[in-house]
């Protein structure tokens, strides 16, 4: 494919993304959700949770009062610590190749963080974050609930995904960045997204934990109250880990002003930022003259 045709396709895909979000934003259902939320979380259908509102990503977008929300919890070890995250001591059952792959990465965050020659596929190529790394972005997300599916819109990317309701997974879904997602409601306060069909190009998080195409992600969203959404994300990947494991359960706060300024990823902008800001900090310190 020529560079020109490639560029045209990228622009088309970008426009499609904006058009999709814009179309959703002007549907009556979404307009209702954009309006100021009621004092207490309501249940639209009477038998499942109402996820309306705007939610802060776990990357630090919206602090929760009381200081209970550490930055970027979906990079932590399952114990909730950062100092050992992404090391053999972090409690995650890495298969040997997965640990070796992790140690070969040069991530932007975590104990092994570096600005120097990152291998981050999102920073280098603007490849989609994937799941659950999309929640590492310091931006916001929003659910759009319909009878047949729940759409999840993310400011960062600009990315959206669909969790289909009332259906089963495909027998052999094509591997993609965001996978194939099936949604289901549990009780009156919880929504569960079960995803498979991922490619193996993305990282699970911003410290570079790898995964295989056997990745199976379970996201559990429990609406604690009007202002708090509790999230538990479980990784079940027999191709990279010897047992399922979960990131520590954390809550995100309700936010406002969804998509007032979206955050498209640009390789050109990433490179410019790296050259002007990050690279100078990687030059070894020279001895100072006395």
């Amino acid at each position, binding site marked *: 494919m020529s560079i020109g045709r490639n560029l045209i396709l990228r622009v088309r895909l970008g426009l499609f993304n904006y058009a999709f979000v814009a179309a959703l934003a002007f549907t009556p259902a979404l307009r209702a959700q954009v309006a100021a939320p009621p004092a207490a979380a309501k249940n639209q259908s009477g038998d499942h949770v109402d996820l309306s509102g705007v939610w802060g990503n776990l990357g*630090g977008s919206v602090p929760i009062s009381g200081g209970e929300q550490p930055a970027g919890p979906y990079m932590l070890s399952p114990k909730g610590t950062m100092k050992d995250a992404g090391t053999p001591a972090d409690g995650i059952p890495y298969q040997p190749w997965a640990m070796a792959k992790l140690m070969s990465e040069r991530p932007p*965050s975590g104990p092994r*963080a570096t*600005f120097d020659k990152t291998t981050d596929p999102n*920073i280098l190529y603007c490849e989609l974050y994937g799941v659950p790394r999309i929640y590492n972005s310091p*931006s916001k997300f929003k659910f759009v609930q319909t009878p047949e599916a729940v759409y999840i819109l993310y400011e960062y990317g600009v990315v959206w995904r669909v969790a289909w309701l009332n259906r089963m997974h495909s027998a052999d879904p094509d591997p993609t960045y965001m996978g194939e997602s099936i949604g289901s409601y549990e009780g009156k306060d919880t929504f569960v997204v079960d995803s498979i069909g991922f490619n193996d190009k993305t990282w699970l998080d911003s410290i570079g934990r790898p995964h295989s195409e056997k990745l199976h992600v379970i996201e559990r969203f429990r609406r604690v109250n009007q202002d708090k959404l509790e999230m538990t994300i479980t990784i079940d990947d027999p191709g990279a880990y010897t047992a399922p494991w979960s990131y520590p359960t954390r809550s995100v706060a309700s936010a406002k*002003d969804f998509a007032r300024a979206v955050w498209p990823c640009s390789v050109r902008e990433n490179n410019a930022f790296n050259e002007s800001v990050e690279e100078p900090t990687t030059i070894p310190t020279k001895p100072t003259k006395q």
Partner: protein
Amino acid sequence: MRIGTFAILVLAVGLFQLSSPLFAHHGTAGYDMEKDTVVKGTITQFEWTNPHGQIHFDVADSTAGAQAWIVECGPPSRLIEAGWTRHSLSVGDHVTLHIHGAKNGTPRGILIKVVLENGQTLENRA
């Protein structure tokens, strides 16, 4: 880059932070996140852009002329939550910047907050 010269320009160094609210999706590996530094300068450019905004400013140096700094801040989607606009900083503004500086002493850093000449404070949201 002469770190000794920089030391003259830095007004306050060493305020210890137990934790920082700043989280940049590109990370903060190049910065000393446990030390706050205060720098006064004159804005030469304000880039309202992704993945992170960039504040360019000159710091007066009595021996080597103006020293050109670049400090990163949040992207527009984050800064607007803290009350910023693309016009918040203009060329020629005299400002005081609270930053976490580069570990290697180069004139780079990540913004904590900026205080404008009129006393208004704009917090960073990284």
